[in-house]
């Protein structure tokens, strides 16, 4: 919708009827964040060695791939006026589940992925059911689900991480291994400009971003989801099966999170109980930063992708400028606050 509006606004500027000139404030709201991103990239290119290289670009994309995928999923729930706090734990549960399937049960890569996707679907359905039919507020339902999953993923191994050759609680040694095909998801790189450049996770991120963007902006299902989020009662009286749309949004979010979990497991090559702590906050931040992109002031897939990218660029640039790692969260928080100011203060000034 944002792209459409930009296009039509541009068209209007050249049109014969009374020209609507964008004021400076409107321009700032619309393009401010993109200009900021561009400025940041130029700045780092000028002041660091090696920022302006394909490797560095790919590194940035790789660093935000998994959070980006989760953020795209949570965008779907934001669109229907909900929220999904369980995405981080769905991702780690998927990671643990895929490891368990392969290492402990000796399953193959395909089974492992299928189990993960199923987990995503089931969690999404349960979230949706709690919110739609049990009338539990979205934040509380998904918070409960988050706790539940964090606990659940530890039960099969009694709290241990899963790695090839690990000792099971009963003293036996796990016989399975991570399948090479599965590990390839984390390690294979496609040739693009340079040989062995683009990792699978980045390709998945880009594909999913395009799919969800197209879905939300150009299909009637996406439009209806926005309608549900904006005025549920009006959407219902316009014939929309509101409950189905809401539940679908949580299923999308669950599936995206489990895809993120698969990629995480493939990258780490183990089911690490301690990883994925930052996933939830980082992806929510990306989705919220997305509100500011192109002055949308609402959840949107393009903005979410840009939001994730923004955080990645900033962190990579700062790292290359030797900023200490412990300042990262502080920087992310700062970006989020600025983005929210862009969205809400600037666009809702009195007329």
């Amino acid at each position: 919708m944002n792209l459409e509006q930009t296009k039509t606004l541009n068209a209007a500027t050249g049109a014969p009827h009374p020209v609507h000139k964008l004021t400076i404030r409107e321009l700032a709201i619309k393009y401010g964040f993109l200009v900021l991103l561009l400025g940041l990239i130029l700045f780092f290119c000028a002041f660091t060695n090696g920022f302006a290289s394909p490797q560095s670009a790919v590194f940035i994309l790789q660093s935000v791939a998994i959070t980006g995928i989760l953020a795209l999923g949570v965008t779907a729930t934001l669109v229907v006026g909900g929220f999904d706090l369980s995405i981080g734990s769905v991702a780690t549960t998927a990671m643990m589940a895929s490891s368990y399937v392969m290492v402990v049960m000796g399953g193959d890569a395909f089974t492992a992925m299928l189990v993960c996707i199923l987990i995503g679907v089931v969690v999404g359905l349960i979230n949706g059911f709690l919110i739609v039919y049990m009338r539990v507020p979205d934040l509380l339902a998904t918070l409960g689900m988050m706790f539940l999953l964090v606990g659940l993923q530890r039960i099969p191994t009694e709290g241990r991480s899963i790695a090839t050759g690990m000792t099971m609680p009963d003293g036996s040694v796990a016989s399975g291994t991570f399948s090479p095909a599965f590990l390839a998801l984390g390690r294979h790189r496609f040739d693009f400009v340079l040989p062995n450049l683009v990792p699978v996770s980045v390709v998945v991120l880009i594909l999913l971003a395009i799919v969800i963007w197209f879905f939300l902006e150009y299909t009637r299902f996406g439009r209806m989801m926005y309608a549900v989020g904006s005025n549920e009662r009006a959407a219902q009286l316009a014939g929309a099966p509101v409950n189905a749309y809401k539940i679908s949004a949580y299923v999308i979010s669950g599936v995206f999170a489990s895809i993120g979990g698969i990629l995480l497991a493939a990258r780490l090559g183990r089911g690490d109980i301690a990883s994925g702590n930052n996933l939830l906050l980082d992806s929510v931040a990306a989705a919220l930063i997305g509100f500011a992109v192109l002055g949308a002031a609402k959840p949107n897939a393009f903005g979410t992708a840009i939001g994730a990218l923004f955080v990645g660029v900033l962190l990579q640039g700062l790292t290359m400028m030797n900023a200490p790692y412990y300042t990262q969260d502080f920087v992310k928080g700062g970006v989020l606050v600025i983005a929210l100011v862009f969205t809400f203060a600037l666009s809702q000034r009195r007329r």
Partner: protein
Amino acid sequence: MVQEAVFRIEGLRKSFGPNQVLGGVDLELRAGVITVLMGANGAGKSTLVRIVSGVYDRDAGRITLAGQVFSPSSPAEAIRAGVVTVHQNINDGVVADLDVATNLTLDRLNGRGAPLVFNPRRVRREAAAVAARMGLSIDLTARISDLSLADRQMVAIARAMAHEPKVLILDEPTSSLSSAEAERLFQVVERLRARGVAILYISHRMSDIRRLADTIVSLRDGRISGIFEDQPLDYEGAVNAMLGKKISAGDISVRAATAPVLHAANLQLTPTSRPFSLTLGGGEVVAITGLVGVGKTALAETLFGVRAPVSGGMTLDGADYAPRSTRQAIERGVFLVAKDRGENGIVPGFNIYENISLPFLKRISNFGITSRRSERDLARTQIASLGVVCRSERDEMSTLSGGNQQKVMVGRWLTQASRVLILDEPFQGVDISARRDLAAKLRASAIGRATLVFVTELDEAFEIADRILVMSEHTLVGEHRNADINVDKLLAEIAGQHQMVG
């Protein structure tokens, strides 16, 4: 009785981008006088109100309150100065997540010198006092979001009255009230007039205006086009001045129905109400009238699949019709223009064409992909046909005036042919001339479908219907052909029946 004006507006101007809305408005409000501001949809009435109440900034002009320059930079400042407003958009006047008592006392808790710690019992006592002064009989502990729009409107009004205003501004306060509630409002307004409050009253309802007006000011295209203060007031002159033309007469030639389209047999809406039967024929326009709360909306929603009847069945074109969802109803060609557009119609995040296409996205999409071109074509057709005042079909809904938003809501359901078109209070906020035009459009397009209109105002029923049915206590109690109507009998059915049982 000529008095000094307490509130004076001079040369007020306001534009949105290139679009000039107010082009130098002069207006005076005098203490103890109700000034009615009349103007067609989009004339700039609400914009004027938003400026004097501190919501919008003005481009030019001078406002004085009791001789002092008045230029509020926020709504709170305007209220503190004694200029109190009830806005057209009801939800601007209440906080949906709080209960009634807190809403009624919110400004006390908020104002300067408010106590740091508040005593819930005292809040409730104060709220009860405010409610009593308004004759409000609402549960004070109910949450606003659980109330009907009419109740919310009453809370918003009560809250405004509680401020001890010097100047009170009411922007279409009766648009969702029943006549009983409106009567209570009128009495309070008259009490305030007697106490010397200067009142600006905006309405499209002639019955309100006849009842309250001391002075009428007509606004046309952002300029004052007439001031009427000599008794008896020249209502017709005021209407002509606001329209810039003579209004078309609302006479209609009554038609008979062709074959039945929708038939409801022994329909029972609530467990205690009496079942009734209803037949709607092709080509006819049927109005159902009755007081607010007698089940008009319940019947509309039953026909549209939002709720199921307690008992009874329906047939549509001879086939069984028992919709379990609005989607099923729409697929069978039964459409509902719901009342209270802000709640039930408008998707605020969407622009005009996205709002119009909403129910029919499936029909105008290819393989699930929406066709913006057809959406915009549909919207442009409706904008032209209903005379929606806007810059283009891409305008945001929030930039339209109330009456124009309503036209978009009706237009939405005229984009596709229907078997049964149900309209629940379709004229809310629409000006007199546009109302006549809309009624004429609905009648002209009525061939080939059955049209059912729910209205509380009798005038509206007379202007549009071939048959008028009366509803009371969730059942139908009378039927009239809209020619040589026995008005006394009609009124008795509306009121008498009600009293007999209630």
